């Protein structure tokens, strides 16, 4: 089992300045799943008792040289603490920023930490400066067994199913601020999405109902025009009509999960979409990244979260 790769400056920038900070806010422990073509961070994919998150990068998006070999179809997976990974990368990034680095090499290694102790697995960052080489070892779990890798792969495939209708979140930062302010009112959030491009986010308790409604948002997937009679309706009545007509879905979830998923805005996505899985199975938040200087989707980077719903 071997993995060795060289991070590009662009790759270091993307991870250090944007993604790792966001991922660390979403969850502490992550699976790192290495395939011949992709470098993937997965959070909570094998147990759906909290927010699930997937950040996937094509190898070209991060690395200039990428070599992987294993007996499981050249796939390797292990878990690590995101804070430790982030800290190691920040160290490498600071050396690179000082201008003395010739590159950052990442590899899997086994090292003895105590004399006569067992060899422990590490993800090693080797940053070659002008006169010295700085090595930062990030402790990781033992690599997953072939069976566990198969299970992870299958969970990844099911997590990548896209809801039939996705509506575009108008402004992520404002939405994040808005959701934070709901925390004092209640802890259960109701999210409703129509095929007309409406989004209703509300907190309901025995003492108050409070929220926001957004209309005429961009829609990806199934999109229908709102019936004429609903145009003059108040937003919640319009939502109820859409639910009756089967043109909307509604879920309840923990507000803290939704707030956590919005922490992904630290990764500086260009847009975000919300959708509800068929049978109201979960709420999916998909973050979209553009190729710099264009409005074209950058397919080499993807980030999305799936939030468990509360059975009502």
């Amino acid at each position: 089992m071997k993995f060795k790769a060289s991070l590009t400056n662009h790759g270091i920038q993307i991870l250090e300045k944007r993604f790792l900070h966001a991922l660390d806010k979403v969850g502490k422990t992550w699976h790192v799943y290495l395939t011949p073509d992709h470098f993937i961070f997965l959070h909570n994919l094998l147990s759906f008792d909290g927010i699930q998150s997937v950040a996937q990068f094509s190898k070209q998006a991060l690395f200039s040289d990428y070599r992987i070999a294993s007996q499981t179809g050249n796939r390797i997976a292990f878990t690590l603490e995101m804070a430790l990974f982030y800290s190691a990368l920040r160290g490498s990034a600071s050396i690179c920023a000082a201008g003395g680095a010739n590159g950052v090499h990442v590899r899997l290694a086994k090292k003895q930490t105590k004399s006569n102790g067992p060899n422990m697995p590490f993800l090693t960052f080797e940053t070659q400066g002008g006169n010295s080489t700085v090595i930062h070892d990030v402790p990781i779990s033992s690599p997953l067994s072939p069976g566990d890798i198969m299970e992870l792969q299958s969970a990844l495939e099911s997590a990548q199913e896209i809801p039939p209708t996705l509506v575009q979140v108008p402004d992520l930062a404002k939405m994040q601020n808005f959701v934070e302010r709901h925390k004092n009112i209640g802890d259960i959030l109701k999210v409703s999405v129509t095929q007309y491009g409406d989004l209703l986010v509300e907190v309901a308790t025995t003492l108050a109902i409070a929220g926001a409604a957004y209309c005429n948002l961009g829609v990806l997937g199934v999109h229908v025009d709102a019936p004429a009679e609903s145009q003059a309706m108040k937003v919640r009545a319009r939502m109820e009509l859409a639910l009756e007509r089967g043109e909307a879905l509604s879920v309840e979830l923990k507000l803290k999960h939704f707030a956590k998923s919005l922490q992904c805005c630290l990764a500086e996505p260009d847009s975000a979409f919300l959708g509800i899985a068929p049978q109201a199975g979960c709420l999916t938040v998909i973050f979209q990244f553009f190729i710099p200087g264009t409005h074209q989707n950058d397919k080499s980077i993807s980030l999305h979260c799936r939030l468990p719903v509360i059975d009502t």
Partner: protein
Amino acid sequence: MTSSSSSSSDLVCQLDSASGLIDALSSVRWKRSQDALVELSEHGIVLIVEESGCLQAKLYLKREIFASYEYQAEGRPRFGVSLGLLIDCLNLFTVPGLSRAVEIRYPGPDMQLLLESVESPSSDAFIFAEIRTKIPDTISWDYNFQPAGSTPISFTVKSAALKEAIDDLEWPGSSVQIILQPNPPCVSFRAEGHGDLQIDFMYYANTDLLMAFHCDQQICYRYKYKFLRATTSNMPSSVTKDKRGSKLTFGMGGLLKVQHLVSVTRSSTQHPNIDASGYQLPSRIAYIEFFVKPEVDEDPVNDA
């Protein structure tokens, strides 16, 4: 989509921004869970908060504060509401970039207090809140504030200095004596507990801090620190920024009235009621009154 017919509502009013109202409401919030009694009239809204029969705060929101005020109830409707919840819901209308005018309506179909954003061409979200109201189970305590003597004993001090003095008195803990003496004119705050601390405002030495002083006899009353602190604990920063003064008046038996003025218009907001020189018309000011009962001593300290 935002406005329904106002024909069935006792009150429909609009505010340019919820921020000033939040400041005013926060001034009378001294603990997390607090119920307020709200009374509506053609003159405006009065909100009353009480604790233990010893402390009462009244917030007067005159109708001129509102951008529009449509009142059509007979009598004066009253309802109870959670003060914290009202503030939390109003906070939804102050998200940066989403800051907007808010419409307040009472009652809703189930006697709720309804808050809605007023739609504008630039708005991308419709914000709403429905707050359940309560039937007020007690009639609020009438403090029947009467001045002691023919000339009310009072002083006016810079609000910031008052807050600072009361904050400093936390260290000795326990209760605080307020002593006024006419000659030389002086106001003293004195606390004894884990130590002694006395803060004096000398009228002639500190006319910029102690702005007015009316006292023809020495008085001395003792108040519970936590009640005194409630009168300034959540004073909004606009009060100190605007260099406002607070007036303290002593009534019969030492009943203390503390009055503050809170601006309900953001200073950064251009408003027709603010003229070019920055002078703010009184119509954009919320009046706040606290009534604090003195501690009852077996051996009265008041020698008046």
